[in-house]
């Protein structure tokens, strides 16, 4: 991994676009996106900025996130096929049926390119999909989509899941059809 000390010319003038999973979190001021692993709310209308809070000993030294030697940074993957694991995690941890969101995320700033994704210093959602299983009232899903679209000002789609079809498969079918 090449180091990044000091200023250098930008490599890209367009944000990178990756895939990730969020949780839906009802806050006092409305519906928000939350990170799956940590209680980090993604703020609407402003970028999420990575800050390393790792607690193991050598990582106590302050550093700019992301650092190659650490695990910090805002994660995203190249391939939506790898998101099933995290959609499953989200379901196990949360009981509600309407609680997971997957989608595209813009990444910029200092970005660490990895084998199957990125770790970035700054990010903002680009397009969101709310997977809806059978039995969940359609109106609730559309209401959530409307609330997210209003808060983040990004396109939000409801992804209806036929029986036996995962969110990632449904997303693939929808994108193929488009």
């Amino acid at each position, binding site marked *: 991994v090449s180091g990044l000390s000091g200023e250098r010319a930008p490599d890209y003038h367009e944000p990178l676009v990756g895939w990730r999973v969020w949780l839906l979190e009802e806050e006092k001021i409305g519906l928000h996106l939350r990170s799956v692993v940590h209680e980090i709310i993604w703020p609407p209308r402003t*970028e999420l900025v990575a800050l390393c809070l790792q607690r193991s000993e050598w990582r106590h030294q302050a550093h700019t996130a992301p650092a190659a030697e650490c695990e910090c940074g805002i*994660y995203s993957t190249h391939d939506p096929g790898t998101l099933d694991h995290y959609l499953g995690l989200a379901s196990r941890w949360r009981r509600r049926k309407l609680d997971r969101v997957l989608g595209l995320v813009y990444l910029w700033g200092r970005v660490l390119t*990895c084998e199957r994704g990125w770790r970035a210093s700054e990010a903002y959602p680009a397009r969101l999909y709310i997977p809806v299983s059978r039995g969940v009232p359609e109106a609730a899903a559309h209401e959530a989509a409307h609330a997210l679209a209003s808060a983040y000002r990004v396109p939000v789609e409801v992804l209806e899941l036929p029986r036996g079809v995962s969110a990632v498969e449904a997303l693939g079918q929808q994108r193929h059809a488009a």
Partner: protein
Amino acid sequence: VREEVAVKIGKPERFVIVEPLKDPVPREVPAEPPEKEEPRPREPEKVPAR
């Protein structure tokens, strides 16, 4: 703000610097204060013709 391992993305390879020319964030546009209406010039009083 901290974001930790959320997806298995493999080993780090290299850093890149990404500086979008266009802001990727649809930011809140501060509302402009309402413009003050300038007083309209008074119309001359109409005097009935004699």
